[in-house]
């Protein structure tokens, strides 16, 4: 009875129910996330058939370690995100339920077309959530782009079907690999381009700037900490199971990802607005994860995604909370604001230090693992690029930390007179929730090898290689 199908069906059922009992939306939302966590714990791993027909004839769900890790991360972050967003999450309760169902479906499904359907569910739900920013042209921009991306993905999936006669994700690369390059080129390009829109890759991810950059306490964390890793994991699955890269698609993808990473960080570097900075930082980090997935280094990519998801959620909670309370997100307006909000400041600092990859935090372990893994591919210039860009990332993150902590004019000692008048950014329970996530991040940073050991199974990479990387990262 404990089937992973509950992960999709339960939120969906709750969503359908919640339309008529609007008052209880929030309760239903939290209830279904908690039940999902129980299902995750209880459900046995393996392939699950839906509709009674074995693949390729019916749709099946692939509930393996990889899916488990990603689902666990998503449920936990969703729980916190809805809890902290409070009233906003109440208004969008049904949408969030559908979003959750869609994401779970996306991460579980073992069928290419079903994946398209789930992606569409997720993107339409995310359009609606993004309208809570109140900037409708940005939502429109996102809608157009994501729809185009969706159509591309659909065409790619259909062409895959036309060429191979099957839609089962698992092991599709083997079938596709037998086709000549010239044939697999276009479907692969379409699938990658379709996903690239959601992954915010450089030339096609332009929607992310304004959606992230105007986010509120709901949209920021949902987009940066739930949707971004979810699509990252989906991309990882695609790279592992479906996509056959030939040199041209491979290098185009790699180039796009590196451009996203480097130029995204540079764009973040020049921002004077906290939310915009975080927006570009998210874009850039997604680029880094894609570099790793493209090079077929899932272990490092998963670590990075987890670190980013946890860190970004904290950053966005604090940033949106503070900027809503003080009605500004500019550097000048928020100067010294953490003097009023010590605890939020500390969580923000932990998250940003982890994001930058300072030792003793999970981000460092992720960065080291990533670089060590890339060395094995022989492309030594990529670590050079990554580390050089890390300087820029550290630079702007530190600039923000310094400004947010110090109520002082440049050239003067900090003084309490410069502290902005205190306002409530987040209430006590919300702060406790943010602290919990920060604690998770911190503890992960203290026991990176244990985290790594759990993940190395998920990454399905050769165990020997992963082990050496894990040991190298910690000793």
């Amino acid at each position, binding site marked *: 009875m404990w089937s992973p199908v509950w992960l999709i069906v339960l939120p969906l059922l709750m969503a359908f129910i919640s339309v008529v009992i609007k008052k209880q939306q929030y309760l239903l939302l939290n209830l279904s996330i908690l039940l999902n966590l129980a299902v995750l714990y209880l459900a046995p791993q393996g392939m699950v058939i839906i509709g009674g027909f074995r693949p390729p004839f019916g749709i099946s769900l692939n509930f393996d370690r990889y899916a488990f890790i990603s689902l666990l991360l998503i449920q936990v972050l969703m729980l916190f995100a809805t809890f902290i967003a409070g009233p906003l999450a109440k208004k969008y309760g049904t949408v969030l339920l559908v979003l959750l169902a869609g994401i779970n479906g996306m991460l579980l499904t073992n069928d290419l077309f079903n994946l398209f359907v789930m992606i569409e569910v997720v993107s339409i739900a995310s359009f609606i959530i993004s309208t809570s920013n109140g900037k409708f*042209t940005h939502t429109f*921009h996102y809608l*157009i782009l994501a729809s185009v*991306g969706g159509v*591309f993905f659909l065409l790619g999936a259909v062409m895959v079907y036309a060429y191979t006669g099957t839609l089962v994700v698992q092991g599709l690369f083997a079938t596709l690999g037998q086709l000549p*390059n*010239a044939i697999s080129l*276009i479907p692969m*390009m379409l699938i990658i*381009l379709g996903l*690239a*829109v959601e992954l915010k890759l*450089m*030339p*096609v991810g*332009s*929607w992310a*700037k*304004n959606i992230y950059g105007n986010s509120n306490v709901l949209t920021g964390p949902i987009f940066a900490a739930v949707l971004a890793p979810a699509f990252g994991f989906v991309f990882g699955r695609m790279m592992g199971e479906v996509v056959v890269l*030939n040199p*041209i698609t491979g290098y*185009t993808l790699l180039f796009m990802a590196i451009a996203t990473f480097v*130029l*995204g960080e*540079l*764009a973040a*570097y*020049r921002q004077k607005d906290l939310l915009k900075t975080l927006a570009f930082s998210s874009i850039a980090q997604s680029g880094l994860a894609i570099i790793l997935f493209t090079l077929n280094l899932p272990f490092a990519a998963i670590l990075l995604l987890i670190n980013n998801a946890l860190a970004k959620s904290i950053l966005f909670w604090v940033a949106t909370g503070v900027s809503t309370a003080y009605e500004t997100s500019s550097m000048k307006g928020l100067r010294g604001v953490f*003097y009023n909000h010590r605890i939020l400041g500390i969580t923000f600092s932990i998250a940003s*230090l982890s994001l930058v990859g*300072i*030792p003793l935090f999970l981000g*460092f372990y992720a*960065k*080291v693992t990533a*670089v060590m893994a890339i*060395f*094995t591919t022989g492309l*030594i210039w990529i*670590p050079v690029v990554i*580390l050089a860009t*890390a*300087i820029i990332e*550290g*630079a702007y993150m*530190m*600039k923000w930390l*310094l400004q947010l*902590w*110090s109520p002082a004019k*440049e*050239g*003067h*000692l900090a003084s*309490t007179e410069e502290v902005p008048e205190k306002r409530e950014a987040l209430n006590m329970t919300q702060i406790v929730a943010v602290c919990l996530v920060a604690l998770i991040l911190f503890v992960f940073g203290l026991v990176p*090898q244990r985290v790594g050991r759990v993940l190395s199974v998920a990454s399905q990479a050769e165990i020997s290689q992963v082990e050496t990387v894990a040991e*190298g*990262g*910690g*000793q």
Partner: protein
Amino acid sequence: MTMIFIFLGLSLLLSYVLSRKQPTLGAYFTIIASLAGLISVYLLRNSVGVTESFYYLNFQITTIGWYFAMILLTVYFTSAFFNPFWMDELIYPAAYNSLYLLSLVGTIGLFFAQDLMTLFICWETAVWSSMLIVQQGKSRQAAWVYFVISAIGSMSTLFAVLLTMYLSGTSEITGALTYFTTAPVAGALVFGAFILAGLTKIGIFPFHVWLPLAHGSAPHTFSPVLSGGLVKMGAYIAYLSVAVFPAYQVFGDSLKIQGVPLPIYGLMILGAASIVYGTLRAIQQEDAKRLLAYSSVANGGYILIGILMMDQMAFAGGLMHLLNHAVASAAAFLAIAAVAKRTGTTKMSELGGIIHRMPITYTVYLIAIISMAGIPPMGGFVSKWLIFQGLSEKGLILLATAAAFGSIGSYMYVFRPLSAVFLGQLAPKYEHIKEANPVMVTAMLILTAMSLLLGVLPNLVLKTIAKIQIELGINPIIVNGTATLTENGSVDMLQVFTVFGFGFLLILILFMVLPKSRRVGLMDTYTSAEFIHTPELLHYGHSFYAPFERLYEKWPSVLPLYKRMSMKLSELGEWAESFFFHPDPNRAVLWIVVVAIVVIIGGAQ
């Protein structure tokens, strides 16, 4: 040794808790904690070679590590005496105290690190904890520049560390670095990336920009630690990359200049450049702390050259100069801090005649600058002399000239604060200030005593350095009783001291005997009918080296270069933003089409 780290870790938590209750209490606690650290590290002097693991960090006691750690602990310990008096100026005193101890943990960990990962983790810990302290001073910009320059070093080290670990398959420092004797090409890359961290941290030209900014605007109590202590981390990296890393073997085939391989020679030239540049800039400074910061740049050059020489004398000189400079610079910074505590400024033109109110501080400063300038009989003389000996013995004329230039130039810059801050007429507003607090005086006197001791009996330290040299397999410096022997002759500092002491006594007697001069107040001028609105303009500390300043007013500075670089990066970001993140869906669809075309055309071929 693990116990030391645990103890310091616990005490940083304790100091946080205490500081939350009463900041001064926490600050006094930092003194106790660092003293305990000092004593316990001192007791490790006979357990060289012991390795210990703590969690995934591995440590090993080495002579050189012990030597460095002792220097650092001395500086931290003495500077901690000043902490209690600055608590009310800081906005986050508890954070200051605990970060103070955290950066101490980081630095000591660095020196005792057995493997590369531990080395890097400790390095970063020290960097960012000290960065967070610097920001509590006057300038966020300074802390930021400090972090960015350090990050350049850190990231290149990280690259080197990871590449080394990947190639050699081990992370144990000696084993991993000696791997490169067999792989010189990768070795050259790793060497460059590795030593970059050292250069940025020592503040070698052109990475020196953070020193004047950070030292100049850090909290007064932390500037001595930065200059006397944390800069030495860079020296340790330089030591590792030339002594443990087989640099001379890796570059064995490259062009040699007087027996020194070209890349290493190039680094020495950078060291010489920072000697010259630091000296010239220091002369120009108006702020006492910035001046000392530039002098640290110059002294960093000596240290780098000395260590890179890897020979009998200059190497010993470089290592000894570390200690001398640490002690002298910490003392000088502390003296300036003591003055700043009483007067509220570090601008030299606003001060003057402080000797009349703070004579002990004056003495401390005097002895410190004598040592920094390398005038006998202080320790600085011995180390600079040894470096000079080494350079001239190898025939490295250019470097020797730079070293000589720096020595002479240092007279000019150390004399400026001496006369502008301490000598001359006392400004009326400082009429009622008092000598520094006894606690502070204690700290300063400890350092002064050390400076003197190092000057008189340098062999106390040179013995340890000789041990290090033996471990490295190079000719050790020869000491004989109180004399230091070199090929060009020997020097016995005790004799030198006796001579100087005798001369000093003579002058003192003359000073006592001869009639006293009359003190003239600053306001006591001959223009009887005129009211003096701006008395500070009359003090000769004002525009002290005006001719020099005019001389190099138009000189290019390095900081604008970095600013321009930062601007260029911003512009690139702006370009990317407007090009790829245009708020127009048409544009994005166009990009999709472009990517599709590229892929299809590329795939067609």
